[in-house]
């Protein structure tokens, strides 16, 4: 072997061998202390890789757990046939529960029910816990000490997000005070 392969090739190999996200620290650790690339060099090489993959069957994305190589969405019609069945769709109840946990964490089951206006079945919470998207962050210091739920890094990775800040923005709540005025004339003295 004459000379080390280009940095981006080493990163490509490592990301593919890992089969999941690798963060900067993990990527750095692939190199001897004496030959360790700077974070800037790593980022530059990752950017090069991302450019190389344009139009290919793979893309580089940054998620909560680091950088991940993934097969892009436009290939899903073919690639998803590798598995006999389409992954199950999640029910609206599950998605609404997950959305409340994601946007409102830490949140108790009672608080979720209050917003949704209906009971949240244990099966839904259990499924989200088992899926690894949700975990118990602690317990609220109120009677019954209900569990406080939050989302996991796995949730972010699964939905291709780097952080909760990347969740689609919630709609604005509009002011209620004005209605009272319209209804009753001048607000109470």
């Amino acid at each position, binding site marked *: 072997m004459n000379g080390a392969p280009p940095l981006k090739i080493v990163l490509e190999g490592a990301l593919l061998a890992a089969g999941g996200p690798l963060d900067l620290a993990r990527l750095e650790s692939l190199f001897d202390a004496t030959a360790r690339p700077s974070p800037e060099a790593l980022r530059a090489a990752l950017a090069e890789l991302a450019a190389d993959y344009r139009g290919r069957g793979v893309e580089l994305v940054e998620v909560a757990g680091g950088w991940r*190589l993934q097969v892009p969405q436009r290939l899903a019609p073919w690639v*998803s046939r590798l598995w006999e069945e389409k992954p*199950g769709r999640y029910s609206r109840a599950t998605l609404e529960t*997950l*959305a409340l946990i994601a946007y409102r964490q830490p949140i108790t089951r009672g608080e979720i029910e209050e*917003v949704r206006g209906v009971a949240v079945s244990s099966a839904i919470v259990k499924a989200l816990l088992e899926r690894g998207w949700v975990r118990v962050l602690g317990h609220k210091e109120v009677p019954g000490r209900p569990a406080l739920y939050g989302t996991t890094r796995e949730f972010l990775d699964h939905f291709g997000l780097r952080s909760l800040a990347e969740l689609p923005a919630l709609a604005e709540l509009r002011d*209620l005070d004005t209605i009272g005025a319209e209804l009753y004339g001048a607000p109470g003295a």
Partner: protein
Amino acid sequence: MSLTVDEPIARVRGEPFAALPADLYIPPDALEVFLDAFEGPLDLLLYLIKRQNLDILDIPIAAITAQYMDYLALLQELRLELAAEYLVMAAWLAEIKSRLLLPRAPSTSGEAEVDPRAELIRRLQEYERFKAAAEGLDALPRLDRDVFAAGAEWVESGTVRTPPRVELTDLLAALGEVLRRAELHGHHHVAAEPLSVRERMSRILETVDAVRFTAFTALFMPAEGRRGVVVTFIAVLELIREALLELVQHEPFAPLYVRLRG
């Protein structure tokens, strides 16, 4: 949700159904899936409001309450089981309506009078936000559905001398991952079997022979107690079911023997 009027008269569960409440635009054949279609009373109210292009901040409470009650009446007529939340909402709507109809009481405490609809509007808005958020979440490209983790095989080379350490958590995580994928993509329902049975199956396979018969009773260790005996028994049955073990009895009531199939 787009529910439109297709047929003025329809059959519900085979019965002609003509007496639709006024302002009810859901086709009758959709009524049976009513409870599945709506996520709860707030969802139903939002639908009623949106259908008339009304703003949440400006809901005509009397009209909406009337429509809501019509739905409940119809559902009860169809003997669909109603979640309690729908009835609670009905009571609440009725209360708001009555408070709006009553003359405004003179302010005694000096506090601003609160619009009785305020809390309803707040909850409707709040629910609407998260309903939209759930749709937004569902639209995100998701691993295993829209995008797929890319990996390539790593054939371990001779350069790694120290064997990798594995923690129990790694093993458990790997199992969780593979079972999750299996469930996600197919019908490989991997039933959780008591591990003690699986272990006993391995032990039995080690002790029995393909040529020589082993006494059935020799597989059991009474010292293990009742539970141990049961575990062994289930393990033997499982091995027989999987055609790994053969159970032989030469005549009725004679001792049982086992041997490896093949």
